């Protein structure tokens, strides 16, 4: 009978972390930014149907980089958690902090259990508040830790470079068009520093808009509206964001 080789716990964990990081790095990056009226999610996604961003509850959105089947599983778990909470207690009792904790527990357990392979995902859970001060953004890496982020956050393959780029340029109170442009610039920088063009059709954009009259603040920005936002200059963004709700409602119906 053969004796298993001894592997030190440090080495085992380092190997698992390495494995998960590599898996995540294969996927495309995405960024989550605060802007004046809420939180915007931007990512490069060639698919129209397989979303990286999703609504979890009234004020809570979800973004994920990594393996689709694994984060989809986590997303549905999160929707269930939130809906069950909201039904049992009240809609106000569903918070991003609670949800982030559940995700952290799940990811942490999977990461350290010897029987399973670690999930190759990195999540962002964001909740839009009544004012920019009330916004919460949590980043959840593959090992189950939670990082409380402010302003901007990037996850996925090229995350470190993108977040340092964003940290230097992001400021509070940006308009949606400005934030969106910054996000696209950050995403289109390659590892070696060269810029490439990401066409609007390959972008997936969603916002948690605190000015929305409905209680569900999440909405996707698609098609013509996205094109207009990307084209606008800083000067005309005010008018654009003012007429936005109507247009988005039309867009959603189609």
């Amino acid at each position, binding site marked *: 009978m053969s004796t298993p080789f001894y592997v030190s716990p440090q080495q085992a964990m380092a190997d698992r972390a390495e494995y998960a990081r590599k898996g995540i790095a294969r996927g495309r990056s995405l960024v989550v930014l605060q802007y004046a009226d809420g939180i915007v999610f931007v990512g490069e996604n060639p698919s129209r149907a397989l979303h990286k961003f999703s609504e979890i509850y009234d004020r809570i959105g979800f973004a994920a980089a990594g393996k689709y089947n694994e984060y989809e599983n986590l997303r549905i778990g999160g929707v269930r958690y939130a*809906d069950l909470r909201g*039904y049992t207690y009240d809609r106000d009792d569903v918070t991003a902090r609670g949800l982030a904790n559940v995700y952290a527990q799940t990811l942490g357990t999977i990461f350290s259990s010897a029987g399973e392979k670690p999930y190759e995902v990195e999540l962002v859970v964001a909740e839009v508040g009544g004012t920019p001060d009330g916004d919460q953004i949590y980043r959840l890496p593959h090992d189950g830790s939670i990082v409380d982020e402010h302003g901007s956050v990037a996850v996925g393959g090229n995350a470190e470079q993108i977040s340092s780029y964003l940290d230097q340029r992001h400021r509070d109170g940006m308009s949606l068009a400005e934030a969106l442009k910054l996000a696209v610039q950050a995403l289109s920088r390659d590892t070696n520093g060269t810029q490439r063009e990401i066409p609007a059709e390959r972008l997936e954009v969603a916002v948690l808009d605190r000015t929305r009259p409905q209680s569900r603040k999440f909405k996707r920005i698609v098609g013509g509206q996205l094109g207009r936002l990307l084209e606008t200059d800083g000067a005309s963004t005010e008018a654009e964001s003012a007429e936005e709700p109507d247009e988005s409602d039309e867009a959603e119906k189609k």
Partner: protein
Amino acid sequence: MDFLSEHQPEILPGNRQLPPMQGVIEAPHGTTIVAVTFPGGVVLAGDRRATMGNVIAQRDIEKVFPADEYSAVGIAGTAGLAVEMVKLFQLELEHFEKVEGAQLSLEGKANRLSTMIRSNLGMAMQGLAVVPLFAGFDVDRDRGRIFSYDVTGGRSEEHNFAATGSGSVFARGAMKKLYRRDLSEEEATTLVVQALYDAADDDSATGGPDVARRIYPIVTVITDDGFRRLTDDESSEIARSVLARRLEQPDGPRAALL
């Protein structure tokens, strides 16, 4: 719903163990709900009274709820159970939409509500029936549709107009005489208020417009713009104009004899 019944079945309305008992439980009951289609949408409205036996339990109860962006439920029957059923129904539609990334079809929603009513059959046998009216805008067919139910969950699509609850007979009579296929949205909202007025006129469990307390029927409109509930000012405006005409003609507008 399936997830709930696996993990926490006790919080679902249909799964409660009822102690054996005699007689009828006294609980507030909601009364009359009416719905009318018009080209481009559907109107769903309800009076504001809840009764418990011969007592008025509540004067300003709300019995019409949005189910999601394009549909609404009006409830008649045991108020407590009905409100909970609507809450669960809303949850289910929203949950489906988030998980699947698409809305249920209007038929799908109507069928789902049917199952929920059927699961309440045990309670209905003890006098705690819930009989809702479901109205929505069918985005695929581009028109408003109405579904009515019986206590066993039987579902039937109603054309043009429908009513449920204790005052429904009188409301239906009124709508039968006043309904036209080419109603505008404003006319349709006036029609439902007229029908509720007639229901309140002949049914003691249905409340008419309460001018002294400023309590007026809840009127909701669903079109391709989604669900909209008329503001208190708008519905009081309609109720007041109906009332003003009824001061001259207590039985309301006359339909032609032939």
